[in-house]
């Protein structure tokens, strides 16, 4: 491919927008993981599985309504709630008993959960590839910068900032948000002032998993919904959360932007090795700032 073609304004512009829309999905999923990491101090390895359950639940809900637009919107509302409910059950029944134990136990538990949830998805939904479609007005593409830009990606570019604003309001303006931030910084003190730390953890876990489910439901119309979705997203999520700064939700935003944009531009400049670019960016960042771009919460 000619260099001249690569550096046209239209090619760069359209790749930028495409990368940005991918970053929005990554941000929604990773903010959840960051939130859980910040409050509970444990990276939830099963976060990818919950994202996958979000996508599969969106499929089931959308199919109930025959793939109509109503089905899509209901799926977007209820699939994350299904995931949140599943995570609440898991947390209250099993997870909370491990809080007193050694930290490693929590990590191992989330790993076991990932394996179990993966097989449960296979048992519940089977192995066939699933697919849902966006409502008609979100299908097809519009031409921006002389290139087709899928309407659905434009939708993601709107949803992403809305979720970010929602999260900001939640963590800064609501009581539970402020308590979660406090628990992330100093859980003993939060317990000392009489707040039930266990319920704070439960709330944080459920909210983080809700975001994973939301990410899964939002990505569902753009990909084939398959087993194995959990494994592909979890590695990226781990890296993004690490380069952003542990537990820092805005770090998750920065990390997602870096990941999505380096990938999109990498595809333009060197399509044969495009998959390497985000990881090179991660390596450079970690060498330059080992604790991540933004301040870690702990």
């Amino acid at each position: 491919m000619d260099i001249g073609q690569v550096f046209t304004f239209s090619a760069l512009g359209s790749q930028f927008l495409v990368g940005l829309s991918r970053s929005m999905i990554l941000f929604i999923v990773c903010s959840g993981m960051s939130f859980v990491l910040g409050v509970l101090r444990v990276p939830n390895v099963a976060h990818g599985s919950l994202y996958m359950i979000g996508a599969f639940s969106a499929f089931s809900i959308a199919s109930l309504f025959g793939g109509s637009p109503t089905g899509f919107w209901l799926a977007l509302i209820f699939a994350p709630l299904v995931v949140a409910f599943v995570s609440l059950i898991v947390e209250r029944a099993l997870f909370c008993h491990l809080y007193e134990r050694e930290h490693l136990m929590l990590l191992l538990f989330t790993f076991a959960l990932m394996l179990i949830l993966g097989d449960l998805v296979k048992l519940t939904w089977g192995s066939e590839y699933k697919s849902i479609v966006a409502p008609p007005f979100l299908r097809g593409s519009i031409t921006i910068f002389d290139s087709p830009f899928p309407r659905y990606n434009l939708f993601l570019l709107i949803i992403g900032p809305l979720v970010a604003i929602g999260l900001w309001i939640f963590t800064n303006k609501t009581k539970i948000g402020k308590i979660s931030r406090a628990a992330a910084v100093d859980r003993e003190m939060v317990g000392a002032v009489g707040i039930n730390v266990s319920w704070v953890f439960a709330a944080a876990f459920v909210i983080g998993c809700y975001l994973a489910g939301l990410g899964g439901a939002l990505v569902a119309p753009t990909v084939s919904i398959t087993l194995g979705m959990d494994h592909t997203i979890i590695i990226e999520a781990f890296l993004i959360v690490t380069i952003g700064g542990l537990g820092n939700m805005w770090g998750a935003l920065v990390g997602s932007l870096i990941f999505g944009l380096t990938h999109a531009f990498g595809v333009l400049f060197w399509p044969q090795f495009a998959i390497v670019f985000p990881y090179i960016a991660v390596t450079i960042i970690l060498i330059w700032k080992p604790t991540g771009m933004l301040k870690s919460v702990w």
Partner: protein
Amino acid sequence: MKKVFWVVIALFCFSTFFIIFPLSSAARPIKVGIIDCYSGPATTFTYDVRDAFKMAVDEVNAKGGVLGRKLEFTTRDTKFKVDLGISVAKELIMRQNVDILMGTISSSVALALSEIVKREKTPFFCTFSKSAKITGEKGHRYVFGITENTSMIGKAAAVGLAKKPYVKYWIAGDDYEYGHALADGVWGNLRKKRADVKMVGQSWWKVGEPELTPYLTAILSAKPDAVIFATGGASMVNIMKVAKATGFAKKIPMFVHTATELSTLMPLGQQAPEGVLGTSNYHFYFPKTPENNKFVKVFKKTYGRYPKVGALYGYITAQFIIKGFKKAGKLDTEMFIDAIEGMKVGSPVGEIQLRACDHQAVLPMFLGKTERSSEYPFFIATDITTIPGPDVMPTCDEIKKARGK
């Protein structure tokens, strides 16, 4: 006296053991071990192989079995990992005493198993791995290829693409052995037929990459005449979805090996891109022969879904096992192998021969393009050209050369 008593008892037990043992071995079933990946995105294909195999097994057992014995099978999940594949193969051969091994969808596992069965002298039928090495350079007496491989796909695709006026091609796909082998197969064979074609660029993404939009928009900027996509697994569906969402399929002609297959088109429903060129080994709606219709009917009745290409492979493997042992007349591995070399079996796509020189099944390929269907809730392949099996096979001399003889 006591010592003699115990010796007599021991001899008695020993001899009854020898009396009982031959009696039970008369009813000993023929055991097949299926080693495959039943986790992750590959499962949608591997379940079809197993289910069609089971269908054929139940059918033959109802008629009295093979050589008066029941045909039995057991499955093992490799989770797409080579080390797991090796350990379950050893377990099946040494502890379960299987007579035949079959599987798998992962070429790396298949090649590892091929090494094992060469040592253990157990026949291994490769049911879904597409590496041409399996029956090519790494082939041997104990390994059999039932599925088409990347060089066969390449030849078939080249037949179709050579007729088109496209000159500047872009090649894109999943960055793993299958993706590259597929691309090399198609491109190599196309260049042989049309010396004027040029590759203007390549893109490779990680296996199962969910976000393919940046790749397609980058390719659009380059403006090739056509694109060859070498996708596997989840990417097969993802590429079609993104091509539809960006309108790519309408702007630039696409060839995807599995574009016309049911596994790709069924999940897409009415939202598949139209006019995408693809190759496939099996369509349940073509050809509408009595064998195919019966196969589809029984499969749908038993499992509640239409058979996909994996079902064809599972079924053909069963036919070779059944007919092979019947022809050999005995439960003897070497006689079985001699019996099936060059054997022809019936199948939903016609008579299939197992070539003697490389143990590869000679399968026809179907080249078609995607189109909306009035009959089904998903797209189907139309303008189907049947490329006969012999036209896509490498010659026996090429195989001999590759194996270094």
